[in-house]
């Protein structure tokens, strides 16, 4: 298997952020997939994790990190879906929040 390229890592990063933002889906029926804080945690954590590891040079370590990220992406996908099935009311703070980019 060829070593993970920079492009692949960036694709993975974008995929994870995109998926996490599904927690952010603005939904008029007052149901949010997840507690607001966990959604913001996911986006923030992903950004910080990729930033933290951006200077890793060892290809074996890079592959390990990429594999872990791929597994985490699957976790996010599943848990976003489950959260949407069991959604409940918004938090008091959510109607005051400006939409985040």
């Amino acid at each position: 298997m060829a070593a993970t390229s920079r492009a692949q890592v960036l694709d993975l990063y974008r995929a994870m952020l995109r998926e996490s933002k599904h927690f952010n889906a603005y939904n008029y029926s007052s149901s949010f997939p997840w507690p607001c804080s966990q959604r913001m945690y996911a986006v923030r954590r992903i950004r910080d994790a990729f930033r933290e590891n951006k200077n890793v040079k060892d290809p074996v370590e890079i592959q390990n990190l990429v594999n872990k990220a791929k597994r985490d992406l699957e976790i996010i996908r599943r848990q976003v879906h489950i959260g949407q099935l069991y959604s409940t009311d918004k938090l008091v703070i959510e109607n005051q929040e400006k939409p985040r980019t």
Partner: protein
Amino acid sequence: MLLRAAWRRAVSAVTAAAGSRPATPSRGLRLRVVDHAPQSAVHSDAAPEAEPVLRPLYMDVQATTPLDPRVLDAMLPYLINFYGNAHSRTHAYGWESEAAMERARQQVASLIGADPREIIFTSGATESNNIAIKELEAAIQPDTSLVSVMTVNNEIGVKQPIAEIGRICSSRKVYFHTDAAQAVGKIPLDVNDMKIDLMSISGHKIYGPKGVGAIYIRRRPRVRVEALQSGGGQERGMRSGTVPTPLVVGLGAACEVAQQEMEYDHERISKLAERLIEKITKSLPDVVMNGDPKHHYPGCINLSFAYVEGESLLMALKDVALSSGSACTSASLEPSYVLRAIGTDEDLAHSSIRFGIGRFTTEEEVDYTAEKCIQHVKRLREMSPLWEMVQDGIDLKSIKWTQH
């Protein structure tokens, strides 16, 4: 635009209501009872006056924590397809369940620097504490004793000098137990460096499931404990009963996630804690932080607001889930024994609020909590005759209250 206006009306109606008890009518607005059943796309037809109820922010992590999604993800397979009993030796269902249980045991052990054979799964830290303390009664020698100390206090967040206590106990040949429910996964713990003989671990304090915990029991030198629960001899005879695989998998996953996230969480939580304390103390005078500020876990902040009664402040802050003192004793009206023990004046003890900051707490939640707190403390102080007297320069301690 219209929706936002409707939300605002709903929120102001909610804040105008006297209390958060669902059944209490107030100014003609009946708060809809929060329906905890899953709401699919179809709204329940039970409440035609569907004023959406906004949920409060959660700032009570010392009472319990939400499940980390990584933990739920690890548990679900064992609640769906992998449902075997971990002690069934004769088929794949048992073997896969046992493998999961042992993997979880390794994850818990790794977090505290223990050997997996030293971890016994229990129903929670309370059961673990009972097992540890009962060991005292099982001891034969007259001079055997046990020291039991909380690692991080759940009310004021103070960190005990565990390593020093461990060293002293070890040199005096006294068993050392610590209830690490609030500390595991939040501060680094090593049972060998700190010479801990027994440790209680709780699942639901570290973003794991409720109903599970563990007790660490040192093997070298061997610490003997007596089983509280007898039966089929599971968990090396120390805790009979089928080990609940989904729950222990959750506990193991929570420990593994905690080990990975400890440094990141600690840094974020410290910053948020500083932010909360700074905002509040900048705008409000006469606020006391309970507990030693140097040896303190940042995520548990206990503040006393002079001249304000704690329960009334809690009720006023109903948009934020908070508590004063510990959940275990919240039914009684007595001031916290912890605050009394650190020498807090009784009036300050009655006005203490505990703010919990956790892995998922956001800056916005901290700012909102600080603002509401400042707003309501000011309002309650305006209504307080004691505050008025203090503003007039009267020293309250010099007053001789008449006795009846």
